[in-house]
């Protein structure tokens, strides 16, 4: 009897099982992870990206904040973050309007994980950064302009 497997089956449902399986090394993480949203990541314009993420016109919200510098000297490494104080925030995404593909990253937040994610992105040129947030099933958006003095997509 494989005791580890028994425990995994008892421990929860859905994503929890997949996470546990991946952590226990029973199945490869690559298999356990959800399908990559190709349509959203390959969309060229903001409008197409929003559509691929499941919204047409998200409401602007003051409860969502994009954090980052006003001016980024190096477009290859721009620290940005998304903070949302909306209750039940389940998804956050970072979009860069003037990049070849607007969507930089999206994160699913299970209950208990704070809507406060920081990362670093590449920016080809000065652009608005959008934070798209899904809370209680509704989409909200916030924006911040970051000026780039040296582009991050050159050769």
């Amino acid at each position, binding site marked *: 009897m494989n005791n580890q497997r028994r425990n995994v089956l008892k421990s929860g449902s859905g994503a929890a099982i997949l996470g546990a399986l991946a*952590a226990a090394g029973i199945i*490869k993480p690559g298999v356990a*992870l959800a399908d990559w*949203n190709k349509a959203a990541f390959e969309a060229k314009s903001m409008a197409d990206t929003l559509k691929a993420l499941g919204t047409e016109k998200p409401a602007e919200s003051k409860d969502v904040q994009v954090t980052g510098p006003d001016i980024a000297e190096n477009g*290859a490494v721009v620290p940005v973050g998304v903070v949302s104080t909306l209750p039940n925030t389940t998804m956050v995404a970072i979009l860069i309007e003037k990049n070849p593909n607007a969507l*930089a990253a999206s*994160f699913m937040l299970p209950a208990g994980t*704070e809507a406060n994610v920081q990362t670093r992105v*590449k920016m080809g040129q000065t652009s608005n950064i959008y934070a798209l947030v899904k809370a209680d099933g509704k989409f909200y958006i916030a924006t911040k302009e970051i000026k780039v003095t040296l582009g991050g997509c050159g050769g």
Partner: protein
Amino acid sequence: MGKPMKIRASAKDGVTEVKVLISHDMETGQRKDANGAVIPALFITEMSATHNGKTVLSGEFGTAISKNPYLAFKFKGGAAGDKVAVSWKDNKGDSRTDEVAIG
């Protein structure tokens, strides 16, 4: 398998903050080498983090995430000694999982 990640997890006042530094080229597929040939895209598409086996974050990355991606997030709960694991997978099928104990 990629190179090891640097993961730091610290619990304070019932909230655990996790900081991850992944070692990955994150090639966009839009750059050219010295001969003008396009360098093929190679980037992380999916990542996830677990706390004692329970998923606390799952993310999808595009090419706009910087080389050697940095990620910081917080979740409720977690105590010193608990395990936090982070996994990623790139578009060529390479993947890696690293685990640390909360300090």
